[in-house]
């Protein structure tokens, strides 16, 4: 009974829809042994980690972080270098790399504290570009254009590999939900509405913004490390602007500031993207066309659609909100 009480915050107000997605993803490999499909879901899970950890900063404060590849690729490279050049197990390398990403999140958060809107986006973009260039300049360690191949894998079996990734995703999902529903999430939402008013409520807004940056960086670092080792490869594409932009799009289309939205967006769109490989020559056109269409039809994202928010039943199913009348 005591234990139940302790885990109560984890289960209370959980979005039934989000839980359903997590369970469905875990069930699929048990009923199917199509390696190709499992690989696709694994990739989708990794993108979900990126989108959710991006959301905790940008979705809750509306300061668009356009350099998210900095954390993903930076941590991926660090964990790859640690485990391939040094005798470090990947189960140590990934947390160390994620910590480094979190610490650099504190640094970037501090430096960009006073920047707003496009200036903030540009500054974060610049940090990612610096790292991108560095991956070519320091080719002796990073392998330059080719990156580092032959990284340690989690397991030898793709299905078990998938469950490692899935486990990381579920852990990050619950951690971020817990954070977003705590006082920290409420304060971040207040900062999004008005920073001055939050300060005049006696809240040190700078602290909470930097904290969100650090957590966002740390979670993305875990995602980056997991990505590198599950692909057994790390290259400059993981630091590129393309990755940053795709993370922004996945989270925006899913619905910013909800955690479950980016989860949904990342998983659906990644699966769509990979399914379009059957018409490879038109894939990019169809895929980007779809993204534009979704942004046009639901600018605030699927989860934030008016008819979902307005209906008590739907908002409970999707968001887990239980509003008393």
């Amino acid at each position, binding site marked *: 009974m005591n234990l139940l009480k302790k885990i109560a915050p984890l289960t209370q107000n959980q979005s039934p829809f989000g839980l359903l997605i997590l369970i469905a993803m875990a069930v699929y490999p048990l009923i199917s042994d199509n390696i190709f499909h499992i690989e696709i879901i694994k990739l989708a899970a990794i993108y979900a980690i990126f989108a959710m950890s991006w959301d905790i900063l940008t979705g809750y404060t509306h300061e668009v972080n356009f350099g998210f590849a900095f954390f993903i690729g930076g941590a991926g490279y660090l964990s790859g270098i640690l485990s391939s050049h040094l005798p470090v197990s990947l189960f140590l390398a990934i947390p160390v790399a994620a910590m480094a990403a979190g610490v650099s999140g504190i640094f970037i958060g501090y430096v960009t504290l006073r920047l707003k809107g496009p200036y903030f986006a540009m500054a974060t973009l610049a940090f990612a570009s610096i790292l991108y260039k560095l991956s070519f300049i320091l080719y002796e360690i990073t392998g330059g254009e080719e990156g580092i191949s032959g990284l340690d894998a989690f397991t030898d079996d793709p299905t078990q590999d998938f469950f490692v990734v899935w486990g990381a995703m579920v852990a990050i999902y619950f951690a971020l939900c817990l954070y977003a529903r705590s*006082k920290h999430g*409420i*304060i971040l*939402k*207040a900062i*999004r*509405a*008005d920073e*001055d*008013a*939050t*300060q*005049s*409520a*006696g*809240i*040190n*807004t700078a602290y909470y913004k930097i904290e969100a940056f650090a957590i966002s960086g740390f979670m993305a670092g875990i995602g980056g490390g997991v990505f590198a080792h599950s692909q057994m490869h790390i290259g400059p594409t993981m630091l590129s602007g393309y990755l940053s932009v795709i993370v922004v799009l996945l989270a925006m289309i899913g619905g910013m500031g909800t955690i479950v939205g980016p989860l949904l967006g990342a998983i659906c769109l990644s699966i769509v993207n990979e399914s379009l490989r059957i018409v490879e020559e038109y894939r990019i056109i169809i895929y980007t066309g779809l993204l534009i269409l979704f942004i046009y039809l639901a600018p605030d994202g699927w989860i934030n659609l008016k008819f979902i928010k307005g209906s008590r039943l739907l908002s409970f199913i999707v968001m887990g909100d239980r*509003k*008393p*009348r």
Partner: protein
Amino acid sequence: MNLLEVTQLTKRFGGLEALGDISFSVQPGEILGIIGPNGAGKTTLFNCITGFLPFDSGSINLDGHNIQGKRPHQIVNLGLTRTWQLLKPFFGMLVIEAMMVPSFSKRTKSNLVSKKDQQEKVAEILNEMGLGKILWQEVDNLSQGELRLLDISRALVTCPKVLLLDEPFSGLSHKETENISRVIRNLNDQGLTVVIIEHRLRELMKLVQKVIVINFGQKIAEGLPEEIIQEPAVIEAYLGKRRLEIGVA
């Protein structure tokens, strides 16, 4: 002893002197009104006192603490809270969530240690304000008057010693104005010190015990409300100077 003491406060924006040598003091339990025409520097004065703007010279003392160079949230935690002329509501949140935000401040936590006390305080303030019914509504759906009350409630959750109200009546109907006047008078009866900036002199004069008049960044008068409205300098600031020659002709 003075609760809030402003001494020779000066603030310049480039060559423009927005506030020049302003001095005044506020006694505990008092309601002080600050009036002046548009652009006189009233809001700048508030911004300087609350730490949102740095000032050039002078000093501000709050209950024995010099608050120069302190950041806004630190000043709130010393017991001085403000509301905003242009409302800055927490859009996108529920009323109850918006009211939780100030209860996370250091000052509220040290005054009301347990979570239960904090929640009771929030509930008590909301009921007093007449906002008890809209607890679970979204802030986006509230009327201007309700937003005003919510803004004042937010300030009150931080357990202030001094409350600075920046034009609390602007944009409100007559009924809403009366409601807020009543709230302010109640708070003052409970011992809260209040400083009000206001344009609507009729409502203000009924409320305050002392008035300061500012024009072009200078303090031009100070005194009881009845005296102030007789003061030639104040009449001139508001209505302009009578041109005698034309008047005679």
